[in-house]
């Protein structure tokens, strides 16, 4: 078992890669009452074309299947695993993102028992035609719930406008139609391909003893058989550099229209430090422009075109990256064009060394604050681990960023071809 002490943040991580390839991390925090554990597979909504384990040809599965699988893993032949956690006083949950599916629990007692439940249920699938059919009703309501949320529609509308072919544009839950096609065999195919321990990370944070936890996990894994670890061949369509649609409009009933500008990232660095630097530099630029203390935010606020919903976000992941900037506005066309202008006009003259240092300070403070949360630590650490990045180490890279780095980055960050606009507006007949 490896032990690493991160001095500045005063955290310790104990880790080990097991024989079956599973990466395990333990962060003890005795002051906390609770323990949080998250078991993550490097498999999300974008992984829909791949060579299934034991086969040689690529197959494409229905949209929304990773999320469907997440739901179904909780159901076993004789019971619902939620109840196992309940019985042991824990609360469990799961989520599916573009690139990951994660299963988690938190508890303040019976940690060993709950951890065993977590590992065992994820590693022991049971899918039947009847239970797959039953889930379709539930997920249909989940999709309908999101359909009524303008923010969600705007977010996905923007992604769709950015990408021609990349599956990041597919709704994570799929559509009401696509999920009807899902069968139990599809679920097994995806499961066996992507839930191999070597494709997964297990992180435990909280009131635990590292030796005891590691011993428990090793013993649990030693008692199970897995195919030898092998690389997964995933296929992604060739994605053009340009955006798919310069402008799209989603029509739905809204009281205030929305305008979002999307930025398509063209190069996703493979080397960990380069990847993190890109992520942070992008964060810093977005912050400089669009945060509450941002220079563009101030200008936009004065025009009266934006309100508190205005925000920016940055997603950089395995093989795609995009930023989204915008919010509610009475004049979506005008706001979109102003945001685009702010992005294209940005140069080193307007982002001074003083700005840069201030934003860096803020980022460091934000990270410290976020670390109050075991969930944040475990989720982020797992996320970056699947990208082969040590999240805590990467904080040093943030501290080492210089003003020259940001100006150099700015020079080649974006051109107009990378920008798209998504507006959400009410139907004209609504008036």
């Amino acid at each position, binding site marked *: 078992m490896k032990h690493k002490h991160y001095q500045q943040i*005063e955290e310790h991580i104990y880790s080990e890669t097991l024989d079956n390839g599973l990466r395990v991390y333990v962060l003890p925090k005795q002051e906390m009452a609770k323990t949080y554990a998250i078991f993550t597979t490097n498999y999300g909504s974008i992984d829909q074309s791949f060579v299934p384990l034991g086969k040689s040809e690529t197959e494409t599965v229905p949209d929304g299947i990773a999320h469907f699988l997440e739901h179904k893993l909780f159901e076993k032949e004789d019971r619902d695993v939620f109840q196992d956690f309940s*019985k042991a006083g824990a609360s469990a949950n799961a989520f599916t993102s573009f690139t990951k599916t994660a299963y988690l629990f938190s508890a303040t007692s019976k940690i060993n028992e709950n951890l065993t439940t977590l590992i065992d249920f994820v590693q022991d699938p049971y899918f039947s035609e009847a239970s797959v059919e039953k889930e379709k009703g539930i997920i249909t*309501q989940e999709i309908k719930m999101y359909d009524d949320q303008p923010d969600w529609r705007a977010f996905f509308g923007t992604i769709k406008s950015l990408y021609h072919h990349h599956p990041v544009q597919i709704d994570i839950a799929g559509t009401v139609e696509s999920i009807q096609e899902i069968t139990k065999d599809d679920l097994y195919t995806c499961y066996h391909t992507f839930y191999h321990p070597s494709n997964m990370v297990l992180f435990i944070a909280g009131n635990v003893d590292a030796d005891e936890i590691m011993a428990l996990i090793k013993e649990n894994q030693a008692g199970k058989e897995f195919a030898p670890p092998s690389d997964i061949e995933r296929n992604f369509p060739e994605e053009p550099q340009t955006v798919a649609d310069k402008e799209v409009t989603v029509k*739905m009933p809204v009281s205030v229209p929305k305008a979002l500008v999307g930025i398509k990232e063209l190069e996703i660095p493979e080397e960990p430090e380069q990847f993190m630097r890109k992520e942070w530099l992008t964060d810093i630029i977005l912050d400089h422009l669009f*945060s509450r203390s941002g220079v563009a935010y101030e200008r936009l606020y004065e025009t009266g075109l934006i309100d508190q919903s205005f925000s920016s976000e940055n997603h950089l992941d395995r093989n795609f990256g995009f930023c989204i900037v915008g919010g509610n506005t009475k004049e979506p066309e005008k706001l979109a064009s102003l945001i685009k202008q702010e992005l294209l006009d940005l140069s080193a003259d307007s982002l001074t060394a003083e700005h840069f240092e201030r934003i860096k300070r803020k980022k*460091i*403070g934000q990270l*410290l604050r976020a670390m109050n949360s075991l969930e944040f630590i475990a989720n982020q650490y797992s996320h970056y681990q699947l990208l082969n990045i040590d999240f805590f180490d990467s904080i040093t890279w943030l501290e080492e960023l210089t003003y020259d780095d940001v100006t150099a980055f700015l020079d080649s960050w974006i051109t107009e071809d990378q920008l798209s606009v998504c507006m959400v507006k009410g139907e004209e007949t609504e008036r």
Partner: protein
Amino acid sequence: MDTLEKVIPKNGFDLHLLHTKKFKTIHLSMKFTTKLTRENVTKRALLPYVLQQGTANLPTATKLRQRLDELYGTVLAVDTSKKGEHHILTVRLELANEQYIAGEQNLLDKGIHFLKELLYQPKLEGQGFDPKIVEREKATLQSKIEALKEDKMTLANTRMIEEMCKDEAYHLRVTGYEEDLSAISPEDLYQYFQEILTEDHLDMFVLGDIEELAVEGKVEELVIPRQQAAITNTTLNTVEEQQTIVEYDDISQAKLHFGYRTNITYNDAEYPALHVFNGLFGGFPSSKLFLNVREKNSLAYYAASRIESHKGLMFVFSGIAPGQYQRAKDIILEQMEDMRQGNFTDDALHETIEMTINQLRETLDSPQGMIELHYQRVLAQSTLSPEQLLENVQHVTREQVIEVANQVQLDTTYLLTSKEAKADEA
């Protein structure tokens, strides 16, 4: 685990010191509370926006925010909420604990200084706030009020409470009212703010690794001479006649909500049993609502219940296909009937007790959660600490849960459904 709470009655306010080594931050939270009234609710809703637009020395929102950035991304949050019929204005600062930042000193002092400026040196013009700011922030609040219409779950719950508590202060919207905005002048608003500063009941919480920081002396400068007001009471009501409200909207998923009166609040002996009752009925994924509405009948993605701790209410939430209204309603009401009959196993009872305790303990693992749980006690004027509440939950019996189930009364059934559903009925 080892949180030390000290409550110190000061001149004009109550100081709560929560010392804990759980976090890497220090939290300062000032909570001003008074009775919820239509007259003041919109002013209170507007104030958080106006205050954050600048001070005399940091005259724009950008300058104010940049100052916070310099203080290592210190978080400033000003917001309003209601608990029972108390309206609470919270001014909150979250600072990094400087022991984790190389070379930084006196961050807490700088934070306190900032907060003092925010409260006592706002940007004024004559006898009022800067009128340009007030006008601009009225528009901000207005768009926030409008945006509520898009969050259908919140909208449905707000509408239900308005109908259910029509004649009680609790029906008031904490976001304020569009039609009351125009009458608020910059002078009125400033005047009312002075009233809050000197006449509301004030609690100050300081939380974090604070034992050696001499906090008690430092925070005194955050309070001007004032009298500590008494905490107002919340009125409870019984159900006279059940009602059903159906409303229509452009939605694809219908929201079916129920409003119950528990008439059990934080201070009551039955309060721990109410928590356990809620856990069995709809608080967890192991609860009757989730199991029967979602898992067994695939009618919804979510179906849950939640209790209100100071007005004695309970709300049930579900999102269903419009055509399934009757079926979902029957199933939900059946679950309540089951609870009244005591149709739950001892195992389920014990598990729910464990989960309830787990949930409360976890809340104490977050700085905000810890402050909120302590503040619940303050508002209830109770001596029952969160730790004692946990202890009491542990001892809840089956009989107590059944008793609570029989005390809970359905008041309002509320359905927000699609316009197509209306057309279908016609």
